[in-house]
């Protein structure tokens, strides 16, 4: 084999490997939503809650859920790489815009994301649940709960069993989504 060809082949192989690594990395990261753009709403909100539980913290502490009551939570959290919550409450209606919601929804239109639950009306709280599927595996989940005076975005990274998500309600900053999921089951 000529040296030039051999070197080129080596370079191409390295490039392809790098590209594959980058693609894999991008795919793995795509479950994490960009939510920082919502921070400006904190100035208008009467209350803002932000929860960030990253993978390291989750995995370090998950093994300490040793109470029998925690068994289900431990099961749901198995493999979860992060929980991120932003919640805004407003005194008046119309303090957040469609553009604010669109900044989240546009990310949820990316390949892999599917809206699996959408319940509610303009008068009540609307809940949308999205799943990110990487092949036959769930790579993440997003919950968008909106009302005229409130907005909550929950982003869970890693595999989550939708049916068991209700076990996290009220814990780790996850809002009640059980009714929405039960309505989905009824529709089925």
């Amino acid at each position, binding site marked *: 084999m000529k040296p030039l060809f051999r070197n080129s082949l080596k370079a191409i192989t390295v490039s392809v490997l790098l590209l594959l690594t980058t693609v894999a990395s991008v795919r793995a990261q795509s479950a994490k939503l960009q939510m920082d753009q919502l921070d400006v709403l904190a100035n208008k*909100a*009467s*209350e803002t809650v932000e*929860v960030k539980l990253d993978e390291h*913290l989750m995995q370090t*502490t998950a093994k300490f859920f040793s109470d029998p009551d925690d068994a289900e939570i431990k099961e749901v959290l198995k493999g979860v790489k992060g929980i991120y919550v932003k919640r805004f409450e407003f005194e008046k209606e119309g303090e957040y815009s469609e553009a604010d919601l669109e900044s989240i929804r546009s990310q949820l239109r990316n390949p892999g994301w599917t809206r699996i639950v959408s319940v509610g009306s303009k008068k009540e709280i609307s809940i949308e649940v999205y799943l990110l599927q990487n092949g036959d595996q769930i790579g993440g989940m997003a919950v968008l709960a909106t009302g005229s005076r409130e907005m909550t975005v929950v982003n869970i990274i890693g595999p989550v069993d939708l049916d068991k998500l209700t076990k996290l309600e009220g*814990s780790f*900053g996850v809002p009640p989504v059980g009714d929405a999921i039960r309505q989905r089951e009824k529709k089925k």
Partner: protein
Amino acid sequence: MNGAMKPKHALCLAMAATFLAALARPATAKEDGFNDVVKAIEQFYHVKHQNIPLLARAGMKAAKTAARIRGGDYKRLAEAGSARVAFFEEQNFDSHGQIASFKASVKNALSVTWSALVQTLAPKNEEQNYIYVRELDKNFSVLVITIERHEATVVEATVAPQILAQLMKDPNEMGKALTDDATIDP
């Protein structure tokens, strides 16, 4: 060349001196989360903190035994002797609509080893709660900042991972539980 040092030796000596000086240098800003946050509060709100001894605090608070997690039994959360507390009492906390700037200044005051776990803001009443966590050998160091219109508290405590796991289940109550634990007399 007995009296004069060779340039190579002088360079080595200078490098060694620089290295030793670097090792011996005092802790700089962003290395002590507690003090850095207390300073950030003082600078932003133009207030002064008080370090009240534990015995003096004993009479100030209700006679609860300790904080309670999620309706469970009362038990100590912080590792013995690990809690540091700074009070700001009867002072005016008004960010003049710039609560987001204060949030940013807290973040800037802390080194990257601290992770923001929970942040709650209610600008109307100036109410703010921040919880930052960082790993500390086998335990975790937790920094809780609570601000209201006329008072504030900063607590830093070391907690075991199993305690942190319990607290993480209810992040909104975590700050209160830890602050109560550090400020209420046992």
